[in-house]
């Protein structure tokens, strides 16, 4: 989904001191060796930061309003795409437009962008329900978008109010309907739990409402209130109460969705498991499987051949650089093999598919693994074909282990 997560603090640090910022590499990065990298990148993320307003809990890189700048920003994205084009494979697997509110972008500019982006097997756009008119659904459809992720968050009007969301429950239903009418057969809904004022029965009702819309995919997140934000300040006491209820919420989500026939394929992601289609998000799977990805736009993160960079989150400097044909400033991070292995474990164990053990064995504490196996939290499983049963080649977490995934990962990597 969104490879952009700048908390307010990080943003300021970025602006003031530019730690680790470098002028962008003139040449495409070389592989660091060790862990295999993709020769060419097959996953593209495009960040569209514009929003009608900023929701209280949001910590993404967003820009409110500025309709006058949408055209210039799309120019910037396309210029950046040209600069990085040589990193991309001729055929992409996935393209993902995240935000912000991508569907808040001026329709003409959104269409111009979609038309100019490379084709891909899965093209996802994030949308806020109230923006999904029949016309917008049509626009997306005719520009090869085949998956829409709708930020429903909740179906309780009061809770949506707490989150500053514009859409009401009816907007969500209407949005889904408009997408269906336009022919979309891969719709994802986002739900948030742990909202100040939420009761366990509210969550069950939200899940029930969501299931009623028969989405192909569901993402369910706990509300992450960043310390120091106005939202956290305003709801401090209630957030603490919600934090205590969080484990109950999480169990409720998992139980209800599995009960409804969904596959719990990633910690917070579920897909319909009927009809033989693989409805997992291919784009997000790429992140969790440690594949390379290129991110375009302000605050976007890329990971290519052992390097990770984050483009400046500031709109002005971003556009200025691209107007001059330069790469915008980036914060660069080198990922040595040990780090990449750790990330493989950290991300791979979020999935329900087994993680091949050989590639990460050097980073896994064998004693901790044995202990976690005894506790019924982790297990070694067979990779299949011709493998001796005594030495199963893959690692996976049990359902209980997945609920405790961060602690288990910390133990395994200790």
């Amino acid at each position, binding site marked *: *989904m*969104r*490879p*952009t*997560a700048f908390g307010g603090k990080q943003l300021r640090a970025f602006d003031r001191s530019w730690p680790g910022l470098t002028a962008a590499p003139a040449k495409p990065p070389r592989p660091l060796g060790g862990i295999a990298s993709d020769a060419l990148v097959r996953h593209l*993320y495009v960040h569209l930061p514009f929003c009608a307003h900023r929701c209280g809990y949001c910590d993404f890189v967003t820009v409110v309003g500025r309709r006058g700048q949408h055209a210039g920003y799309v120019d910037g994205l396309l210029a950046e795409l040209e600069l990085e084009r040589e990193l991309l494979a001729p055929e992409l697997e996935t393209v993902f437009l995240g935000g912000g509110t991508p569907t808040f972008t001026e329709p003409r500019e959104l269409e111009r962008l979609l038309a100019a982006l490379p084709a891909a097997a899965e093209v996802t756009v994030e949308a806020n329900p109230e923006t999904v008119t029949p016309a917008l659904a049509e626009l997306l459809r005719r520009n090869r978008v085949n998956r829409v992720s709708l930020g429903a968050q909740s179906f309780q009007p009061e809770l949506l109010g707490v989150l500053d969301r514009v859409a009401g429950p009816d907007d969500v239903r209407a949005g889904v309907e408009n997408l269906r009418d336009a022919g979309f057969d891969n719709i994802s809904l986002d739900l948030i739990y742990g909202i100040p004022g939420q009761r366990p029965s509210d969550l069950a009702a939200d899940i029930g409402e969501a299931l009623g819309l028969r989405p192909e995919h569901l993402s*369910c*997140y*706990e509300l*992450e209130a960043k310390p120091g934000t106005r939202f956290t300040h305003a709801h401090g006491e209630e957030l603490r109460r919600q934090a205590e209820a*969080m*484990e*109950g919420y*999480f*169990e409720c989500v998992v139980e209800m969705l599995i009960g409804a026939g969904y596959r719990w394929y990633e*910690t*917070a992601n579920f897909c319909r498991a009927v009809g033989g289609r693989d409805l997992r998000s291919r784009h*997000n799977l790429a*992140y*969790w499987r440690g594949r390379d*990805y290129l*991110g375009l736009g302000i*605050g*976007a*993160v890329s*990971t290519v051949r052992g390097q*990770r960079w*984050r483009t400046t989150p500031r709109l002005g400097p971003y556009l200025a650089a691209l107007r001059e044909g330069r790469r915008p400033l980036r914060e660069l*991070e080198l990922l040595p093999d040990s*780090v990449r292995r*750790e*990330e493989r474990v*950290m*991300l791979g164990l*979020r999935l329900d598919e087994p993680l091949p053990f050989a590639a990460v064995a050097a980073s896994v504490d064998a004693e901790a693994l044995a*202990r976690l196996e005894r*506790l019924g*939290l982790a297990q070694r499983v067979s990779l299949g074909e011709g493998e001796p049963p005594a030495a199963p080649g893959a690692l996976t977490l049990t359902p209980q282990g*997945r*609920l*405790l*995934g*961060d*602690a*288990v*990962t*910390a*133990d395994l*990597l*200790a």
Partner: protein
Amino acid sequence: MDLERIRNFSIIAHIDHGKSTLADRILELTKTVSGREMRAQVLDTMELERERGITIKAQAVRVNWKGNELNLIDTPGHVDFTYEVSRSLQACEGAVLVVDAAQGVEAQTVANAYLAIENNLEIVPVVNKIDLPQADPDAAAAELAELVGGKPEDVLRISAKTGEGVADVLDAIVERIPPPSGLVSAAAPPRALVFDSSYDQYRGVVAFVRMVDGAFAAGEPLRAMAQGTRFEAEEVGFFSPTMKAAETLGAGEVGYVITGLKDVSRLRVGDTLTSERNPAAEPLPGYKDVKPMVFAGLFPTDSDDYPDLRDALERLKLNDAALFYEPETSQALGFGFRCGFLGLLHMEIVRERLEREFDLDLLVTAPNVAYRVLERSGEWLEVHNPAEMPRELDAVEEPYVRASIIVPKDYVGPVMELNNDRRGRFDHMEYLSPERVLLAYELPLAEIVLDYYDQLKSRTRGYASFDYDVAGFREGALARVDILIGEEPVDALSMIVHRDAAYSRGKALVERLRKEIPRQYFDVAVQAAIGSRVIARETVKAKRKDVLAKCYGGDISRKRKLLEKQKAGKRRMKQVGAVEVPQEAFLAVLNLNDGSKK
């Protein structure tokens, strides 16, 4: 010097009653220190020593007053070390007892006055700070006269700050305090009392001595009679106030001997020095081996600092023969030292010096007292650590103290209540004045080591003053309470408590631990047990969720950093069986009372 013209005296006072200021004024008035050199509190020289790069304590200063040689022997600043005070007093014939005109007699004043009387010292009572607006010199003088058995009009009234009356104090020292007695003859076998010592990194152990008989000369071979340590007097001399070498140190005089010894433990305070060539037959009375009574484990917060802690203790020990330490290994806290102290203040000072002067971060376990245990085999065993207390035993004895508490009469009730809670035995009560009462109790030392003083202060709104000295061992109905975390006994949390309190203390501790121990993958039982009998039990419920919901391409680095933090947190945990326990939990027992009050 003619013995008739020598006076040896100490100044004893409750803390902040003006001992140091009076000492300063005496140095100034006797021109021992010129006005230019005069700095506030010359005798409290720790800072000064460091500035000058030497480590000599000016513990005994020689001043001249109207043709007399007066030796002012400083008692340690931390005067509740009864033993340290008493050995300083043994070097004197008299003491100036100072009381604050606004505060009156305090518990420490009483304890010190009794010590002085026990040592047959002539007491010069002085009421200080008469210049203060809230001073009540008449009331203070009446209390003081009552205490030392004199007349209020004999009590001197001074202000050390302004200098008013200080000359009278010097005159009174000459008039009232008797000169030293001893064998002056050069042929007499010399005997000198070591009343303190210090360590200088270049010159070794410096002994502070009071010559009783005969004389020492520089270069003379000497012997410490109790310990048998032999050395040569590299230099003898006196303080005025810095070290001044002299050819000899004669009977009745106070001064120093530079021994060249490299280890203070070879020269114990209280020992008698004599000449190798002309040895005395009998040592002076007064030597007693100091026994630490309060013990605690000291562990470096960072286990890498263990060697630094060892070096620091070694260096402290050079100047502090009463400090005891031995290596201790705790399954929970790692490598450290079990240290023995004379009392609570001693423990505080050692800890503070380790942290301040040696820059160490320490984890100090709950203090406990020394126990004497009669084992089934019939052997008596001294136990310094609750974890070493045998589970099978016939009898246990614990140290008791004689405590004096002085409070305004309105607070007698609350103090008696506190003392009853703490298994105190009432001894007697005395009215020092119509307003102030002295309560004398016998209390188990174990009942005062944790938070007695804080409780006393809070129940008397800060008015109580308190002092104690150890009275000896008594049998007690004591039980060893063990704490088990996930079925594993935890040595660092064992405690020895009175049987009547075992249940409530055990319960309070397991409740506290339940809050301190983070939730694990499984339920963790926290139990308190006496032997195999569980007396309290709590459960730390297993956690059901520990994973961040959202993690996409832009979250990975941040997520990885959070993971690093989580890993670092785990590394700081101590492993008890399969359970991860934070270090702070091991200190839970220290704060038990805070916790149960709220």
